[in-house]
């Protein structure tokens, strides 16, 4: 087991962080969130083409980096730290993973292979047309049906990243279809998370191409496991920003960070974040091994994901909430970027399985059976 970061990972982190420091400052993110196009397409292009994050999980044979969940997790930490409005989680993690798993057993058809290559090159952005609130542990509702003429019809609510996507990957039962975003109607909703809004995707006779099998539990659990690293990044930013604030802010002629009640709360939060780091790293590490389904290793990775998602979700929310409180009135203002993190943290808590859903999964995964 290694829960540390490798040198390669630290280099990847540094290049992402440098770019974000330059191109994705909180005030810019806030301005963009107020605009009609919340996603930063230019930043995403640069991240994809110069740093290659879009193809991180794509095998080298398709032009990707052939990296693992560990590296993707490090990118997510940095994107979380910046609440960066780019479709990395939705395209480069969820959609890419769905595509990779779709081809594991039967091999991808040409349309799938081409798409992987386009994703890796950063030419195309995809989204998995599944509710962001879907849990790995519950069967997906079957909102989309295959018409007799081979087109797709149905409505999927709360899809993240759809408005940034060129291609939608649409589950129909246990099959995954590829649909051009232009053939779907995508209505962005006012969203709690300003930097990753959700949309209603409506398909009415949209042409779709089958690209393979779809196993919702595996794909969503993979996404949930990696989302914990983004939550870690969100929590770390909130913790660091709040620490800086309480060191500076004086009331009663003392920095408010010198008051013991506040110090003790910060110490507890820091411990929570330190444990979130270990949990997120553990999930990424075990997912990186891509264990065969049904093996002991796969169960261990599932348990690690459930542990990390339930813990990191609540820690990110707690740190963001405490951050607002300790910023006092300032934390309640729109102009301070803290609320972008609070909203991301709160929405991510629900995303890909709530903390309660992941704890529930441990009933089976950790052999702690529910009452009869």
């Amino acid at each position, binding site marked *: 087991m290694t829960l540390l970061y490798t040198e390669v990972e630290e280099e990847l982190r540094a290049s992402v962080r440098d770019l974000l420091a330059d191109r994705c400052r909180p005030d810019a993110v806030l301005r963009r969130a107020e605009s009609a196009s919340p996603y930063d397409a230019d930043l995403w292009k640069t991240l994809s083409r110069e740093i290659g994050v879009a193809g991180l999980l794509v095998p080298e044979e398709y032009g990707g980096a052939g990296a693992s969940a560990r590296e993707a997790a490090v990118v997510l930490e940095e994107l979380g730290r910046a609440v960066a409005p780019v479709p990395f989680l939705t395209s480069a993690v969820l959609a890419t993973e769905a595509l990779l798993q779709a081809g594991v057993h039967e091999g991808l058809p040409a349309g799938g292979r081409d798409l992987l290559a386009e994703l890796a090159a950063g030419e195309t952005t995809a989204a998995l047309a599944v509710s962001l609130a879907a849990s790995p542990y519950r069967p997906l509702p079957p909102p989309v049906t295959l018409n007799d003429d081979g087109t797709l019809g149905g409505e999927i*609510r709360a899809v993240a990243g759809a408005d940034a996507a060129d291609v939608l990957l649409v589950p129909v039962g246990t099959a995954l279809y590829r649909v051009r975003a232009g053939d779907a109607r995508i209505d962005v909703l006012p969203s709690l998370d300003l930097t990753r809004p959700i949309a209603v995707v409506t398909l009415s006779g949209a042409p779709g191409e089958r690209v393979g099998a779809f196993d919702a539990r595996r794909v969503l659990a993979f996404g949930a496991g990696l989302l914990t690293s983004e939550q870690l990044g969100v929590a770390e930013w909130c913790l660091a920003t709040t620490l800086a604030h309480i060191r500076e802010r004086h009331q009663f*002629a003392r920095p408010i960070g010198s008051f013991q009640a506040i110090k003790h709360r910060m110490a507890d939060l820091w411990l929570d974040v330190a444990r979130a780091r270990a949990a997120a790293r553990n999930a990424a590490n075990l997912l990186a091994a891509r264990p065969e389904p049904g093996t002991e290793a796969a169960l261990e990775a599932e348990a690690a994901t459930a542990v990390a998602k339930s813990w990191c979700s609540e820690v990110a929310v707690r740190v963001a909430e405490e951050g607002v409180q300790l910023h006092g009135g300032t934390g309640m*203002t729109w102009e301070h970027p803290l609320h972008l993190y609070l909203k991301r943290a709160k929405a991510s808590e629900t995303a890909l399985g709530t903390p*309660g859903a992941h704890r529930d999964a441990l009933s089976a995964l950790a052999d702690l059976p*529910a009452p009869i």
Partner: protein
Amino acid sequence: MTLDEEAVRERAVAFLAGHDPGDRTGFLRARFDAGLAWVHFPEGLGGLGAPRELQNVVERELAGTPQPDPGTQAIGLGMAAPTILAFGTREQQERFLRPLWTGEEIWCQLFSEPGAGSDLATLATRAVRDGDEWVVDGQKVWTSGAHHARWAILVARTDPGVPKHRGLTYFVCDMHAPGVEVRPLRQITGEAEFNEVFLTGVRLPDSLRLGAVGDGWRVATTTLMNERVAIGGGPVRRGGGMIGLVADTWRSRPELRTHDLHRRLLALWVESEVTRLAGARLREQLAAGQPGPEGSAMKLSFASLNQALSALDVELRGEEGLEYDDWTFRRSESVDFFGRGPGYRYLRAKGNSIEGGTSEILRNIVAERVLGLPSEPRVDKDVPWKDLPR
């Protein structure tokens, strides 16, 4: 000789017989002039010099007639009026109290500053004397209703060379004076309930000073004590208030239920109920003439309950919880926990532990004033304000 209940009732009955409630402003003006605004205020200032508790008699008799607006007039009625009564000159009382009460002039409060929140006495807005005038410069924040207000109650620093509590003076600020700029302050909910107020070379005649020069902290304490009394309350009915909102969703949406959410909902039901009962007990104590120290502390509980319940509400709704009803930037005059969506409630409730005394300050107050625990070492007691670290 003070009036008794019967005499007050007679006045109210006689007043009602002689005036037309259809003319709102005229009716309220006449009610003030009849001494039925605040019966415990002196005659000529909206009152009859009667015992305070007889106000209820007036309210019963005049129920259903035009009333002052408890929303826009909250600061005028709740904070400015008692302060003007306690510290104003007779001229000031005569000038301000009548239109304050009728609502013809709206008041706001210029106390908090970006650098002075919990530690209000450290405020930096300066008032410098210039002949018969004061020149005021500074920035105030969290001012509700400033854009409607004709007047403000204002605390400013008139002597930076003495310890912070001693160098303050209390003014009535003319919100129409040149140099007063009001900007809406957008909150994390998307709305602006409050304003920032920038004061740049605002000239106020000395006749707008309330209380003595340097006595501003004592005057402000009167104002703030009246703020504290206004807070508290909470739902009276079992299962009412914020828990009721969540419980209704729970009851009507069985598909959302999980055991995890159920346990948390049950625990919050219990906490809501014991908090409601503590509030009810406090009201019984007050009614029995045994005011308890629970008052300021109840706000702590309501804040944390509102936050926990609204957070659970967002999570409970799953997919729907990812939506937000409306991010439009607009002014709002009040907190709307019941008309808005769960996302709004979640975000707005965050302010409950900050506004009107942070939970940190309230815990200090409970610990020191109720539990008798010693205060912490103070480093700012005897230091001139200008030398304090900031």
